[in-house]
């Protein structure tokens, strides 16, 4: 299954611009059973609280130029925060190809 590693460790890949908010880390990983994306992100905030404000504005909405993939699926089309994240999945956060 695409994007699912063999171990039970979820891995979150961070783009360059987010690494300063995660102590410089390019990847964050931890043991995680299958869970909705909202729970996985909550676990990510516990490890790196500053990331939350970079992905969401304070009114609780995704920042408009952020894309998040579970495996190769863009979560906008797979249930957003309710997207099921399998154990051992890879989550990739990318800046949308936008800007001026």
């Amino acid at each position, binding site marked *: 299954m695409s994007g699912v590693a063999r171990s039970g460790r979820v891995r979150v890949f961070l783009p360059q*611009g*987010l690494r*300063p*908010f995660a102590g410089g880390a390019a990847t964050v990983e931890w043991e995680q059973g299958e869970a909705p994306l909202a729970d996985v992100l909550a676990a990510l905030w516990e490890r790196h*609280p*500053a990331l939350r*404000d*970079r*992905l969401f*504005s*304070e*009114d609780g*909405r995704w*920042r408009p*130029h*952020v894309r998040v993939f579970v495996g190769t699926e863009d979560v906008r089309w797979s249930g957003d925060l309710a997207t099921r994240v399998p154990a051992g999945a890879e989550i990739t956060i990318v*800046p*949308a190809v*936008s*800007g*001026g």
Partner: protein
Amino acid sequence: MPNDRIPKLGRGQVALFVGTAKGLFVLRARADRASWDVGGPLFAGEQVPALALDPRDRRLYVASQSWHWGTTIRTSDDLGATWSDPASSVLKFPEDTALAMQQVWQIQPGRPSEPGVVYAGVAPAALFRSADRGVSWELVRGLHDHPHRERWMPGFGGLCLHTIVPDPVRPERMTVAISAAGVYRTDDGGATWHARNRGVRAEFLPDKHPEFGQCVHKIVQHPRRPDTLFLQTHWGLYRSDDGGDTWRDIARGVPSDFGFCMAIHPHDPDVVYIVPLESDGYRCTPEGRLRVYRTRDGGGKWEALREGLPQENAHETVLRDAMCTDALNPAGVYFGTRSGKVFASADGGAGWTCIVDGLPQVLCMRAAYLGDPSRAAVGPAARAARPASRTRRTPVARKRAAAAPRRKASRA
């Protein structure tokens, strides 16, 4: 780790911090301001719409805004050599407001009597206060809860609080400017605020003299004469001598009363600088001529300053926070354009030099002399003793310039 992207700044030098649409640039000169080193960008790719160098403790504050990841307040205690952890300062709206930060428009250090206090004006229009040198920020509720708020209309740049003027004498008084809501003032430390727009026309509204709704662009005040304020609006130049209670028109002898920026002379409260723009849709310098206008009598009359400024094909725009002064005598006056040029005058505006050309769009600027201005060597004798003026670059800037030679340093 200190970076080599910007020139190392030290005592006896003039620092010019330039916030652009694509990062922070730092320029350096000796007190004679005859030649400049150019470094940057820091925070490349991020917009820098607001910055401040706190004269009380020399902490540098920079608001940088990523297209993707939002706004970050960064601080430096060594003039930009090293920077705070970007995760350490959080400027955001409280949850109950249901608002989201769009942009920081101005960072304003507090008064000498309130160490550690810093203010930030933002969009959507609000004022924030930090009591711990920018680590944590609190929404000023008195203004946020103002009954006018729901009827404030955004200007072209959004609904933003862009100018903060703490009264230097009365710690309970502060004046702010909001586009397009007008001038508001508190006299009780921020608990209550009152519109202060009497005499300011709103040409674009059916009622030309509403209580609020004026599109105000910039207010300046001299610390020696705090009751006198000068105001540049969307179609209007005004002066108040009662702290903003009433305003009178001073737009005589200017090619246009529309403009964004305004700066006051550091030593003379009657000297004010503006850059008039052709309005309303064009918003560039009239007739393709770049002219700074200066009054030396508090708005009685204005004179065009053009020596060293391009007088043909110069369709420039200077944004509201992209003009500043230093504290030297004669005073340095500086401004940056949307086309990425930075101009400097080392003699109070009489003559100008383009000290760098080709930066990204200039959004804000701050200048500071690092030392005792009264002991600085600024005069023509000091200038004559130097080699011919030129603009230099830091090693990284030189490499970048070689790779993409688009920034042309010029000297008029």
